[in-house]
């Protein structure tokens, strides 16, 4: 496989990756269908922003946000069923059951643990022990600027954490198992080892104060942009959106079986961060996974970072200790 040169790198020399928007297929069919799949993403994002900006205080609360989130996911799940991007990514009963297990784990066990050792808990403890106050000057800024700041601070941190996971072996051990997914669907973002899910959820936002409504707006913006990352639906995403935001296409390149391609598109929401740091690859991939597409069981997802880490330690230091003893 020849691959395509992107900057200093050859993308797609080990596994198929389509590089360049001009080579990515577009939604075809009736004008209504094309119109729908072209404007769906911007219209939803705009509607979410308008709703949370103007909703009265009696409605602007977390429970409503959860309800909207669940409803929107249900709509996208139905769209995956009727308009799959790739037939090879279709949902099956087993995939659904396994993926929902990880989603459930996130909402229950991991949520409980994060109450004790999550970034908010740790930052709260640090502020108390060091007797420092949150930076509160953001609160005087316009709501939308605050909402952008919340999402950007988190995404910028996530970019570096994610990039670190692909460049530093101990972190890669925790993240690697997520890369064994062989298809995308609405739930795939939740699949991974709990240690990785904990690490990727760390953020510095707790050091800053924002208005409560800004958090709701930030949640809506994150959902309106980030929910498509692992989605099995094709959209005719507008060029400006693809330039600014991470898309299914970008993230599928990141999950391809091509090593160089996996080291791209690290941001969760704002792909312009990747553009700034030279790690963005515009394109898409259908063949995903590691080790030629071997599927990992839940047991392996949970244990592999530890077993592989232990084996690596043993092979590196165990042998050295043995030689020294001789």
């Amino acid at each position: 496989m020849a691959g395509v040169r992107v900057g200093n790198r050859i993308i797609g020399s080990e596994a198929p990756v389509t590089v360049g928007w001009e080579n990515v297929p577009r939604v075809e069919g009736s004008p209504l269908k094309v119109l729908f799949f072209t404007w769906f993403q911007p219209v939803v994002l705009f509607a979410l922003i308008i709703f949370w900006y103007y909703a009265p205080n009696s409605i602007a609360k977390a429970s409503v946000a959860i309800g909207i989130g669940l409803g929107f996911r249900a709509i996208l799940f139905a769209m995956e069923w009727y308009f799959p991007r790739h037939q090879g990514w279709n949902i099956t009963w087993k995939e659904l059951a396994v993926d929902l297990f990880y989603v459930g784990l996130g909402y229950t066990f991991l949520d409980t643990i994060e109450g004790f050792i999550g970034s908010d808990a740790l930052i709260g403890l640090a502020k108390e022990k060091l007797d420092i106050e949150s930076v509160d000057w953001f609160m005087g800024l316009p709501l939308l600027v605050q909402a952008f700041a919340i999402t950007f601070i988190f995404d910028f941190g996530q970019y570096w954490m994610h990039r670190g996971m692909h460049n530093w072996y101990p972190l890669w051990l925790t993240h690697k198992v997520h890369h064994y997914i062989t298809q995308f669907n609405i739930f795939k973002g939740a699949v991974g080892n709990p240690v990785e899910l904990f690490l990727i959820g760390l953020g510095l936002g707790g050091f800053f104060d924002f208005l409560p409504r800004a958090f709701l707006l930030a949640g809506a913006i994150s959902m309106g942009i980030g929910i498509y990352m692992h989605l099995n639906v094709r959209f005719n995403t507008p060029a400006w959106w693809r330039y600014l935001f991470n898309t299914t296409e970008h993230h599928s390149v990141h999950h391809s079986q091509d090593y160089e391609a996996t080291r791209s598109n690290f941001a969760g929401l704002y792909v312009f961060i990747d553009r700034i740091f030279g790690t963005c690859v515009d394109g898409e991939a259908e063949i995903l996974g590691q080790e030629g597409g071997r599927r990992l069981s839940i047991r392996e997802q949970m244990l592999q970072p530890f077993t592989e880490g232990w084996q690596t330690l043993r092979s590196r230091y165990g042998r050295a200790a043995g030689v020294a003893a001789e």
Partner: protein
Amino acid sequence: MASTVPTGPEAAIAASPSPLRHFDWIWRVRGEVDLPEDQSADVALDRLTPLFHATGTSHERGPATLYFTKKDPAAQDRMAIYNAGLLQVDEVPGRRVLRYELTSHALLACFLAPLLFIAFGQLAITAETYQRAQAEAAEKAEKAKKKDAKADKKKDEAKEFPRNPIDVALGAPPPKSKKEIKAEKEKKKKEPPSATPAWVFAGIFALLYLIGRFLEARLVNRLFARTLRAPS
């Protein structure tokens, strides 16, 4: 061709220990499909064999039997939920039937998953009770510390959330007052600790199990029947 009593690895599938036999329907799918008229056992199994050429699948043929195992099957493998199975062609008066017995760890895990989520729910309630007690103790200590600093307290209460002129001009609703937020927090404190997500997921997995147990049994029966009857 008449079936023989399985020996070797397939014996493990065919003979469940008797106490398990009563409830192994939880993770085992049994069924049968009539063979087309005049189709021999060898021809039937020859037709079915390509189904077991999938990634991660190995199989063994015996006289009128086929035993398979699967490890890490691909997501789109149509029999991905099964770990092992025995297919056997039997002679019954006037016809031949394919009988099968398939084992699924995925079904068993899904059946047990509600218990796991109920345990997570209990854990969440215990954790929340503990955190509330800790927060209450910390609040009391803080109050005692600030008893003399009444002026600071008044100053804190008076300080409301700022509002940017752009938001005022665009008509965004004013932020809730600190008093309102405090009242909401107090109200929440009085509610008992809840673990709603855990109960919801326990319910989801119970439902998923029921769907999977019936749907997958139907799908595999249809797969075998269609494969046997497909024009050669």
